[in-house]
Structures are given as C-alpha cells and as structure tokens.
C-alpha cells in the first residue's frame, strides 16, 4: 500500500492535478510533466464485457458445420451465398461466416485490423452468469477468494505507469470487478458531468469534500474519494466531453455507443488513459433469439455499429488502441424449446485495433459433433481467455510479469495464438 512506487504515483498525480486546476492548462502540460517522471504510455486497452453470455455461434458462425444447421432449425444464420442475400452470413474464411448485423466490423476484418478468437473461454465449468463473470474478471477461474481484478493487477505490474488518475476508467455506474484493486480506477457514466455541481460554490464544496474524505477516512471510502477528486481535476481541465466524434463517425444512440464515444473522447484528450472498460448487456437469449433477424440481431447491430464508430472516430489513433471483447460463456449448440439457447461453454472474442494481426479467425475449432462437445451440449473451450489477454498485456501494454496478473496459471509460449504483433 505504501510502497515507494505508489507514493510516487500519488505525489505525481496530486501535483499535476493541482497544477492543472490552478492554471487551467491544456493536457499537453500534464503529459510533459508526467514525462519528467516516467513516460506515459500512449497505448490503450479497451476491454468490453458482453454481460449475459452472447451466443458466439451466431456471431461468428461455423457455416461449414452441417451439425450447426441441424441443431438450430429456427435460429441458424444461413450460409454465405444462400438465396436470401440479406440474411446470409458474411464469409470470413470459407468456414466461418459473420452475422449480417456484424457487417460494420467486416471492413476491419478484411483490412487486417480485426480478428476473432473462437472457442475461447474460461476453463471453469460453471454456468452461472455471476460466477462465470466473476471468474473471468478476477482472472482466476474456480478461485472465489481472489480479491482484485486481473486488469487492476496488470496495471500494478505495468512498469510504464504514468501516474494519471485516469489510467483506468470504466464507463459504468459501478466499478467492474476486473478493475477493482490496488491500481485504482475511476468509474463514471458521464465524462462531462463528472464533478461537484454546486453552482458558484462548486470549487469550494469540492475542496471541502476532498478534505473531509482525505482526513477522516481510511479504507475504501477514502481511497475512492481521493481517486475521484484527482480525476475530477484532470477532467475539468481537459474537458473531453467537448470533443465531437471525428472523421464523420456516428455512434448509435444507446448506452453502449455512448460509452465508447466517451472512451474515444478520453483517448483523444490525452488524459493518460491506459485501460478503459465498458459493458453491454442484453445477450441472455433464452427465448426468441432469432437468426439473421430478431433479438440477437438487433443487439449485434448496436454492438457492431458502436465499435465501428469508435474505430472510425479514432482514425489513425486506433493504432495505439487495442479493443477486445469477452462474454462469460457461450450458449448451447442446440436451440432450446423457445427458439433460444441456454447457458453453454466456449465463446468468441473480437480483437480490433493496434497490434492485432487481423483478417483471421484464431483458435483451434473443436467441432460440433457429439464426441467433441462439452458435456454433449456446448462448444468446448480450446483457448483459455487468459492466453488472449496475456498476449495483449505483454506485447501491447508492456506487462512483463504475467504470473502476477494470472496467478496459478502457466502462460506458455506454445499456447500463444500469435494474434498480437507488437
């Protein structure tokens, strides 16, 4: 808690924060000042959690599997080139096809900046949403006692820390498990409204609250409050909310598009963001899931349009940004009695942006015949999600010691997918 490192960070962020407010500077000064200590990382990891377990088999569709079509008589996505062109999957590699609502992602896949990893997931067998999300976010499947999230541990382990109170930001009303821990993280839903609003007395009220919380409280409340006020200062100065989406990007209306829009604003205003988190719900399609159209299709459209808008908004800056998506588990291969799917096992992840060796569906495909299914119902996991993150964290974020991030898990070269270049 009081290691020299954290001391330096605290001091640095405090001083820079103060200077920013007092002088009303632009963020460039912050960057310059931070450079005097340790150089800030320009690279950003954007982690997206699809809560509720998205049906990966209908996102990146194994069109080459007859069993897929047999198992899903009413909700399968037709093969590329089938008669109903609007409903057909978009060919990715001759075997896999992309759900038509995911079309906005296709250009990125084709130009090599987006990749998928299929049959990925957590080795733990739980089909509980809560437990599976918890295990994925703690980074320790099967271990419930882990106190912090793996991205928080990654931030602690990261040598190149730049000391910004906005190193880690979650666009959500509560702090996700993945980012809770010693590194500290800010959660908010509205970048532009983040601060004490007491009219003419705002600054003084803010100062009073800061003093109260700093002096009187130890533990969670105090630490959180401190992070809040540090972040408030930087945001007040940098004012990211004033940045309109660039390059003609149009975010769909809705919470997820809004989250990504604000993450882009934070990136573009250079406030020292390293890890951003957003979640998006509505994937628990037990009934009336639909195939090329319907419930899942609508969710995917919003999801894909939001991500594509984000990439377009950031333009060349996307070279510094690696976006990765995950979901707690996949869904049953066979559709259930209500044209939906129940809780399954392996799922698909999307990677997009800087360092991604795209244009490919990664991972060993286990096949859907009964002998290869997990418990005779689900896609088996062939890639541990931790191996995907290990690559990103090591090669993009400069995390050297992955054993701290994923304790008890052997990160081995032979398990690497090679989905990340540098």
């Amino acid at each position, binding site marked *: 808690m009081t290691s020299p490192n954290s001391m330096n960070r605290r001091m640095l962020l405090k001083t820079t924060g103060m200077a920013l407010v007092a002088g009303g500077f632009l963020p460039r000064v912050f960057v310059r000042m931070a450079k005097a200590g340790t150089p800030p990382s320009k690279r950003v990891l954007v982690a997206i959690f699809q809560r509720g377990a998205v049906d990966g088999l209908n996102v990146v569709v194994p069109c080459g599997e007859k069993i897929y079509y047999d198992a899903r008589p009413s909700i399968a996505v037709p093969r590329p080139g089938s008669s109903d062109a609007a409903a057909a999957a978009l060919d990715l590699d001759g075997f896999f096809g992309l759900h038509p609502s995911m079309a906005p992602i296709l250009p990125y896949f084709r130009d090599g900046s987006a990749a998928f990893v299929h049959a990925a997931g957590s080795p733990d067998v*739980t089909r509980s949403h809560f437990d599976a999300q918890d295990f994925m976010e703690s980074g320790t499947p099967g271990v419930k006692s882990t106190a912090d999230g793996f991205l928080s541990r990654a931030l602690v382990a990261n040598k190149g820390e730049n000391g910004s109170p906005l190193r880690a930001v979650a666009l959500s009303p509560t702090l996700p498990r993945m980012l809770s821990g010693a590194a500290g993280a800010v959660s908010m839903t509205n970048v532009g409204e983040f601060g004490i609003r007491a009219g003419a007395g705002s600054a003084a009220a803010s100062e009073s609250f800061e003093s109260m919380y700093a002096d*009187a409280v130890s533990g969670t409340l105090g630490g*959180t409050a401190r992070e809040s006020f540090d972040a408030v200062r930087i945001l007040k100065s940098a004012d990211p909310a004033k940045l309109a989406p660039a390059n003609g990007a149009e975010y769909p209306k809705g919470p997820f598009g809004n989250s990504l829009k604000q993450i882009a604003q934070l990136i573009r205003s250079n406030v020292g963001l390293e890890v951003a988190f957003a979640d998006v719900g509505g994937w628990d399609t037990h009934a009336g899931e639909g195939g090329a159209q319907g419930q899942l299709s609508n969710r995917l459209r919003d999801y894909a349009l939001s991500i594509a808008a984000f990439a377009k908004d950031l333009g060349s800056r996307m070279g510094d940004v690696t976006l990765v998506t995950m979901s707690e588990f996949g869904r049953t291969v066979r559709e259930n009695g209500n044209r939906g799917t129940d809780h399954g096992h392996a799922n698909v992840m999307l990677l997009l942006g800087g360092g991604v060796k795209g244009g490919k569906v990664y991972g060993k495909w286990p096949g859907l015949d009964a002998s290869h299914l997990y418990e005779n119902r689900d896609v088996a996991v062939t890639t541990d999600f931790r191996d995907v993150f290990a690559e990103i964290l090591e090669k993009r974020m400069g995390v050297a010691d992955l054993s701290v991030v994923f304790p008890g898990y052997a990160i081995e070269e032979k398990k690497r997918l090679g989905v990340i270049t540098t």
Partner: protein
Amino acid sequence: MKTIFRRPRALAVLVLLALSVEAPVSPALAQTAPTPKTKASTAPRSTPMTGREKTLHALNRLGFGPRPGDVERVERMGVSAWIEEQLAPDSISDARLSPRLAPFSTLTMSSETLYDTFERPIREARRQKKAAAGAAGQTTAMSASETAKADADAFEEIRNRIPPEKRPRRVIEELSAARVLRAAYSERQLNEVLVDFWMNHFNVYAAKGLDRVLITSFERDVVRPRIWGRFEDLLLATAKSPAMLFYLDNARSVADPEHRPALPARRLGRFASAFARPATPGGADSIPAKRKGGLNENYAREIMELHTLGVDGGYSQRDVTELARVLTGWSIDPQRGEFRFRERVHDAGTKTVLGRTIPAGGIEEGEQAILILARQPATARHIARELCERFVSDAPSQALVDRVAARFTSSRGDLRETVRAIVESPDFFAPETYRAKVKSPFEYVVSAIRASGGETEVRPPLLREIARMGEPLYLCQPPTGYSDAATAWVNTGALVARMNFAIALAANGVPGTRVDLARLVDAKDAADPKRSIDALARLLIGGDLSEETRATILRRLGDGAGAERRPADGAAPGEDTLVPVDRTPLSLIAGLILGSPEFQRQ
C-alpha cells in the same frame, strides 16, 4: 496514508511556483493541512455502544435512518420495545402514508388493467406502423446503420403516438415513487427494509417486455403479503408469479413435442406473447396444434443458484435440467395474465431432483420440488447469510450465519423468527458493527430525506439520482439483484453523485423535494456557525461528526461561503439537473454533512 496525501499539498504549491503559473492560488489550496485529530466515526471500535448509539443503530439498520425526533421517541419507548413493534408491523398504524400514495393510480390496478392501459396502446401503435410500412412496400435492402436508424425512428414515431401518461414507463415510475415514499414515511420501517431485501432477492427486471405491466402485482400481491411468513410460501408464490415466470422464461418452457398430446388449436389472449410466438401476419390469432417448443432451463437454474441453495449449494447441471422438466407447463394465463398450469405441455416423465424421485404427475411435481429446495440445509445457510449481510455486516461471522440458519430451520422457514434471530444475536449490537456498513444508493437517498425532515413527492429527477448512484429501482437486469456490499457502491462516479445529491437536497435543488432547515434549527443556534454545525450534526447524524469533518465545514463557512444567493451558473432549475437554490449557511452545512463520509455509513 496520511503522509502520502499530505505532502503533495505542499508540493503542489511548489510546482505552481516553479512553473510560474499566473493563476491565483485559492486560499483553500494554499491552506496548510489541519493537524491530525481523532477519527471519531470511522476507526473500528471496541467500546460497547451507548444507549443512544444503539437507538441510532437500530433506526439505521432496521429502518432507513431517523427523522427529526425519532431518536428521542425510540429512546423514550426503549429500543427493545421499538424492535419488537417493528417485528409486528400489522400492529403499527400507518394511516399517514396512504394520502401520499393516493396520486399513483397504477399501484392498485390489476395486471389486466395495466395491460389494457399501458401495453395495448403501444402494441396497437406498433401493429399499425408495421401495417403501414407493409402497405408502402418497403423492400429495399438496408445497411446495418440504415436499419438501426429506421428502427430508432420507428420507435420514436410509435412512442409519440401514445400520450405520456399512457406510456408503460409510468408504471415503473409510480412503483418507484411508492417505494421511496414508503421507505421515507412509513412507520413500518423494518417492513420496508425487508420489502427491499426480498424484492432484490427475487429480482425481476421490470424493463423486460411484459414485466413492465406484471411487476406491480408482483410486489403488491406476491412479495409484500409474504415477507413475514414462511420462506417456502414466499418461494412458491414467486414461482407461480407471472412476473417471475416471464422474466426467467419459464412461461415458455414446455416438454419436448414427442411427450405432448396433439390437441386442437386454441384462441390466444392478451398475455399470449409471454409464451407464444407472434401470430403470422394476417393469420388467425391461434396456436398451431403441433407447436414446436421444449425445455428452457433459465428459471430452474436461477431458483437453485439465487433463490434457494446458493451457487455452491450442491446441485448439478443434471439437477437443473430435471427441475426444468418438472416445471414445464408453469405458465401464464393468456387472457388474465395470472398463473396457469398448462397440463398439455407438461413433461410426462419421472424426474429426479437432488437425488429425490419425483413421480410423473401434474402441478404437484413442481410444488413438491420447490418444497424440497426450500427445506434444504443449503437454503437455510444461503438465506441466513444474505440476511446477515443486509442487517449486520458485509462479512458476517460464520457463527452468526450458523445461528440464524439454525433458527430458520427450527422454525421451518419462519421469516419473522429468522430476522429475530439476527437482532437478538450478540453480533447485531456488537461495537464493530456501528456505522460499519455503507448505505446502498436507495438507503442513502431515503435516509438523507428522512434525516433532513424532507417532504418529497418523488418526481423523476429524484429517481434518476438513485439510478446515477448505481441502483435504478426495478431495473436490475441480471437475476442476481443488487449487491449488498460496500464494494459494489463505493466507486468514484457514485460518490460524486452522492455528494452532488447531498448539496442539492440541502439547497432545495431537487425538483419535487423540499427541506426546511430553518424550521429544524433553533434561531439562536442558526446565528452562530459553530452552533449551527453542532445542531445540524445532532439532527442529521446523531452527533457522530468527526472532528475532521467539523473543522472542514467550519473552515468553509469562514471562507465567506454561503453569502451568495444567485442561481448557480445562471441555470434555471430544471427537471433534468439538480440546481442548488438556497445558499444559506444552514443549507451549506447540511449539504456537507449529508455528503460526508460519516453519512455514507449506517
């Protein structure tokens, strides 16, 4: 911790000087840090609670905090007598609550009426829109973004056809308003805490389709009447509730077709979309005789994981599937929106749940299975732990959980006895529990209104503040419900939202809510800053203000704050934003106290 925080303060000034920044250094910034003082309310304590602290503790934990005068009233009657009274809410007169709830007409409507009033218009508008689109022959292929835009436009257009007072949103708004009003003004405080607890335990996401017109009856007819009875009765009632059957998809779960008899087609009714596909356009509103369909294991899993055994309660995937078979046919009456057992889609085979054979039958299979679940030792432990987390601590001792679970079991799931076991345990009034729990957003907002003697009609801006802090009422999407632990609520954005709410509430900046602080503070006290602080600290937080917080507030008053009376930033008070209106020293002090770390705790 202290040094880490302190030193940068001085450093900040140095940095400013070194950079030759031409900016005025505010007095607050330049001020030297105060000398360390006692941490009155936050350090873990070991001395026993005083009588007054016990009273405060009981009012905080078994209710939504004291209103002006409550501490004195409870002290007079004795805290044990007050608890005893709270354990028997029917004995408490609550006459003054009814007029407050009277404006909300949806609270007493049946599901049928709610459907006809709020669901039917929007469905009709959607149908008309679709028919019009079909007539116009919209067949051109659209890109994803065009489709999304068209969908959004269509939604907007459909919505605009419905007058605001007939939009489904009103149902949830009225229900939420009633929850806040009851928590704030009901004399049956423990009853309202338990309603909050059980509605969360049996969480239903009210924005999922038909649940928006089923949720009112769920709270009124299913949960509220049973929270003082037996757990198994409450569990069974939720299992048969249309709201839960729809939310967790059991209404649609049917036996595999080969296990069902072929029967002639039947007319569909109002609530048919709860389990049947929409009829084909132009076709008859009827179910095909040989409808496809099969098991849906969503509810079967969650009733074991969340409602009874707990995730480590010793059930397998096979138990989930078997229980789903048992519960096939537990569905919703398509006309009246009430529970109906649909025998024709019930799985006819024998099932095994948790090692117990359930012979093939009808509805009694499910009733038997639910009793089995309710009476499992794992269920007793799970319910006991959750209640202890709510009433005692985020991490209750195993001894306490065991003790409460034992009472649950010996009383055959009597929920009054189970709660009594908690308040009678040594843990409840143990010194370390005093102000040890962080309030949930709902608890925080309600307790602030109560403490300041506020009068609220609960307009949407107030509900939005609770949502902004992370707990939109009736709108928790996953079946887990909201967490009861501080870690879920203590985060940057939510803390800032709490501070802003505190300031706005005390300054009469929350639309539809008024506080009159001058009425509560003696004129002589109000004339003096120190005495004002002490008076408001006594009123709002039972005097538990740390020296640090007190000094900070005093300093702030010394800065000349509170002299201004112009509206904030020239903004007019609106429905969407909180704009502090009053700028008196009393409102300033109260805002800081309500936003202080002390007031976040209970």
